[in-house]
């Protein structure tokens, strides 16, 4: 796909999504919610009263993300990057998942319009929030288990 934006340094209003992005927008992976009993960590980022919002659930077995689910109120970039993020994170160890960066998401999608790069941060932040939540719950669980 020709992406004049990037090549010309053009920073106008029009967006160019590549086929991969469109695929993740049209058929987002891991969309939905995890039931309460399967949820080991939950992350919520973004303020829908002003921009995009994302919710992300993880189910963790042996420090590995076994299940992941998200919902997103946002632009196609937000939906596609969130979808890709969950695809990347699924099956990874917590340590690996923690290191997934917004650049990794963009790269996996084969690029995203410059002005939409901030979207890819949303998923990453939601995942990190969910991991933090998992750590907190685990710590609380250990406390209880003591």
């Amino acid at each position, binding site marked *: 796909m020709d992406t004049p934006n990037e090549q010309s340094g053009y920073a106008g*209003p029009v*967006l160019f999504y590549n086929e991969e992005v469109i695929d993740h927008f049209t058929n987002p992976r891991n969309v939905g919610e995890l039931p*309460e009993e399967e949820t080991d960590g*939950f992350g919520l980022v973004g303020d829908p009263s002003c921009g995009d919002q994302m*919710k992300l659930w993880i189910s963790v077995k042996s420090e590995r993300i076994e299940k992941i689910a*998200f919902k997103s109120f946002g*632009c*196609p970039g937000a939906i596609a990057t969130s979808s890709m993020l969950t695809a990347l994170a699924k099956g990874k160890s917590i340590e690996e998942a923690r290191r997934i960066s917004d650049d990794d998401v963009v790269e996996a999608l084969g690029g995203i319009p410059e002005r939409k790069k901030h979207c890819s941060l949303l998923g990453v932040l939601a995942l990190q929030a969910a991991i933090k939540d998992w750590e907190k719950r685990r710590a609380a669980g250990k406390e209880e288990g003591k």
Partner: protein
Amino acid sequence: MIYLDYNATTPLDSRVFEAMAPYMKERWGNPSSPYSFGNEARIAVEKARRSVARQLGCKPPEVIFTSCGTEADNLAVRGVANALRHRGNHIVTTAVEHHAVLNTCRALENQGYRVSYVPVESDGAVRIGNVEKNLSPDTILITIMHANNETGVIQPVEEIAALARKRKIVFHTDAVQTAGKSLSPSCELGADLISFSAHKFYGPKGAGGLFVRQGTPLDPLLTGGPHERNLRAGTENVAAIVGLSEALALASESAGSESGRLQKLRDRFETRIKSAVPRVKINGASAPRVPNTSSLTFDSVDGESIVLGLDLRGIYVSTGSACSTGDPAPSHVLLAMGLSPKEAQGSIRISLGKHVREEDIDTVVQALTDTVTRLRGISSIETTRVPSS
């Protein structure tokens, strides 16, 4: 494809293209050249000016050709501001103008002008009392658009014109969304300056114009040669000017029947979408609106995602806001009408034109219903459950 973004731009009428072609192929002379080959071009330009004047209901010298609607707006606003600087520095406009007026007013604020942005009611229209309240002895210009490009809401321009006349204040109206579409000639609006743009009424891009009522104080924006009565320098774009005049004549001819047809289609669309999709709002529906425009707000989804969803089905609509076209700020028009940023973000604009048929409306209603339903299924705002941690 089903194109439903006629407020953004329109296809060039093939008759207009045919009228323009000779001035690109054979009669390419410079209208200001002092020989017969140049005169051919000059004759075409002046014939176009007379034709446009006839359509607008004014005198030919009152028509100034520009390169687009934005230039016409800039010429009007900056031109009056400069010409009347000695008389005052206050400008009155509204919060819902097109950026061509709004950002020009903001630029003038940086140059020491004072600008009052009259609010609109929740229906998208200003109230004449609010305009009047904002006038002061140093008000030199009122600039208020005719129909809004996002919502189609029509401002009470005739009343504002009467008020401006009474107070001896120059009045400009941006009629880019109504020129060539209204039933009555634009000059009956009573404004001193009226902007229009050819590509909004099946004419070429790169051609706009400004009606300048005789005697209206106006400085040029582009200085140079003595073109356009010293109000707009630059070699005339003859083909574009010919195209503008041809397009305006053709559009005005069918404006009556076309308005009625579009209004029926728009009403059909709005009725059906409201019954097919829950939680949808039509913005500006209770104010007078142009017949072709529908601004819709869908709860819990993002406008740009709707636009892309429809795009993938060959249906072209736009977001109600520049936000969704890359600018992170939601539509200033919808916010001014009292929508929340989230609502503004969930808005799209449908604008109809001459190639839209009844079947298209039904296809669009179905596609839009599917898209919104799917997106609501993904939407985090639709989630009711937030796990307790």
